[in-house]
């Protein structure tokens, strides 16, 4: 019998492959796919870049601790380039081609609404880990960022006590800004104050000269800024350049989330008041440890901001639920997530509220000082009461809408 060299190689390599393949599958299992769509470039990349790193870090930490259900996590990440059209495209891709097991992503509220229904239809659990205007009522969607009742109400309260009752509101011109401005007006009026005027700005507006003059003409006691993105950063710069930052106090629902305090000089940013879930200045061991790990993995810890931490906490919360459920099955996971489950993150306890699928969070009121967010006051575990007022998924599990405040 002739046994050529070529035949020998072909047969043995085939056999080797035959042995190797099932071994690989049994030992590790196919990885669990975690989908993510975030703006890693463009106008919104100050938000997205750290979130992408946080996603990587959370997945690596879970894998280093042995993975989930004996399987590794594989992150499937798409850069949406601050382009809303790419969100729908990549969401379809995640749902149909990649067939991911869970999605953590979306930054602006416009992007969330662009992709939420896709994942609901595809029965893929969707986590939105960003502060927003509240009210999303969808059993397939879980939110770990703050809502107006959690972060806007305390800051309105404090600013009104400190500075006075007349407010001038500037907001980004899309669903986040529109609805947040309504909530600001709601909380201001509740406390006997008044909103002198509300101006909306598309995300690419970068010239605020006429607005700053109009604010001065209206002479409010304080200015509330719900501005979003790199172009809107110009407002804070022009506000300081006109010297108004020394005259009329300013508070913001978004400042710091895109590390605006690092882009502005201390003289430009000092004194701005904000409220949110996270500050790097937090002295808890959990935060110090988190920052140390981040520094070791990526180097620069300066860029860590609230929604990067939210993304990290959202993934950890999901991982905890998978462990408890012992399965990736959507219904089983949903049951665990609706059992009052919580995780301790760098920003404190994140506890999922079963009725609204929003999280109870620790809130800090902060002041910008020397390019840092110094904590002035802390509130433990504020519930998402705005959303809870109209949304009850335990009672109406098929609800699929976003409630808004009426004023």
């Amino acid at each position: 019998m002739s046994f050529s060299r070529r035949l020998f190689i072909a047969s043995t390599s085939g056999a080797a492959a035959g042995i190797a393949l099932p071994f690989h599958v049994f030992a590790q299992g196919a990885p669990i796919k975690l989908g993510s769509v975030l703006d890693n470039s463009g106008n919104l990349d100050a938000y997205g870049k750290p979130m992408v790193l946080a996603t990587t870090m959370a997945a690596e930490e879970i894998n280093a601790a042995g993975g989930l259900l004996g399987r590794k996590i594989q992150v499937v990440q798409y850069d949406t380039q601050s382009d809303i059209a790419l969100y729908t495209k990549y969401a379809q891709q995640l749902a149909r081609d990649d067939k991911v097991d869970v999605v953590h992503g979306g930054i602006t509220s416009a992007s969330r609404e662009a992709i939420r229904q896709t994942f609901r239809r595809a029965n893929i659990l969707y986590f939105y880990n960003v502060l927003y205007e509240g009210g999303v009522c969808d059993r397939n969607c879980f939110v770990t960022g703050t809502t107006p009742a959690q972060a806007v109400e305390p800051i309105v309260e404090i600013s009104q006590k400190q500075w006075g009752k007349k407010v001038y509101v500037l907001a980004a011109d899309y669903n986040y800004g529109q609805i947040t401005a309504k909530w600001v007006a709601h909380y201001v009026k509740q406390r006997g104050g008044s909103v002198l005027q509300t101006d909306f700005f598309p995300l690419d507006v970068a010239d605020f000269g006429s607005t700053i003059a109009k604010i001065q003409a209206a002479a409010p006691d304080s200015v509330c800024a719900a501005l979003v993105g790199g172009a809107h950063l110009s407002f804070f710069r022009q506000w300081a350049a006109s010297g108004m930052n020394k005259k009329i106090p300013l508070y913001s629902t978004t400042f710091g989330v895109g590390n605006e305090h690092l882009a502005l000089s201390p003289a430009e940013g000092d004194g701005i008041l904000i409220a949110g879930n996270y500050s790097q200045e937090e002295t808890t061991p959990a935060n110090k440890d988190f920052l140390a790990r981040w520094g070791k993995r990526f180097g620069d810890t300066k860029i860590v901001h609230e929604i990067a931490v939210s993304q990290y906490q959202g993934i950890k919360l999901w991982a905890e639920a998978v462990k408890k459920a012992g399965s990736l099955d959507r219904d089983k996971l949903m049951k665990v997530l609706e059992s009052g489950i919580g995780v301790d993150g760098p920003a404190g306890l994140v506890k999922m509220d079963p009725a609204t699928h929003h999280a109870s969070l620790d809130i800090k009121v902060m002041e910008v000082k020397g390019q840092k967010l110094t904590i002035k006051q802390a509130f433990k575990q504020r519930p998402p009461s705005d959303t809870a007022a109209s949304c009850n998924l335990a009672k109406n599990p098929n609800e699929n809408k976003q409630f808004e405040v009426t004023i």
Partner: protein
Amino acid sequence: MDYAAVVFLEILYMIAFLALTSAGLAVVFGMMRVINLAHGEFVMIGGYVTIFANRAGIDIWFAMLVLAPLVVGAIGLVVERLVIRHLYGRMIDTMLATWGLSLLMVGLVTLIFGNTAVSVTAPIQSYQAGAYQMGGYNLFIIAIAILVMLVLWLILRYTRVGLIARGAMQSADVASALGYNPQKIYMWTFTAGAALSGLAGGVLAPLTGLLPSSGSLYIAKSFITVITGGAAIISGTLASSMIFGTINQIVSFGSTPVIGEIAMLALAIVLLRLMPQGITGRFFKNST
């Protein structure tokens, strides 16, 4: 009263903004009939040069007033030699070529500096105007715009270079017959236009956050300014800057900046319908 002064200053600022960002385009379009769709990117690169030169420790005034026009002028020179000179008299082809160029420049800047907003603090303090606080840097922009227009006018009107340039613009053949090389004139005109765009980008950099895609913010406004202005470089640009700047700001003060922009664009459509050759096609016909 104070408020009226503030509104007036904001109007002046918007006129200066339009005149500055359009000057480079007006020179190139007015003298060479070349529609440069990469104009916005020239402005954007001027801004990047200023910001990154400043970060590297170079004085900001030097960076914006000298370095930005020099660097962008040099880029313009290269672009003219490599691309534009092969396409004179072919308007559609130049538009396509410069559009491609603009995409290329956005890509290159993204590669080099990253797709992240960069900015620099304005080097002039604010001042008090009656009961109002105003950004002092806006006054500087107004002054620069006046200066640029004045210098441009003096050069075109009273110098030999200006005479030759205007001659070549009216009839390239006659200028050629008199011994001036139109190719060379066009080359320096394009370079000067690019340098003006770079200067605009440099001095405007401290007012906004800058992205590689920021060119699109400038291009639309400068185009309607130049086209509405018509063929005369200085009087055309000034006339349309004044009309658009005033409308934009008055409507902005009355409502919001968004409606201000819409009013400006709507007015441009009306003006071009009434005067297809631009303002200087109808009035001030013999001006520069």
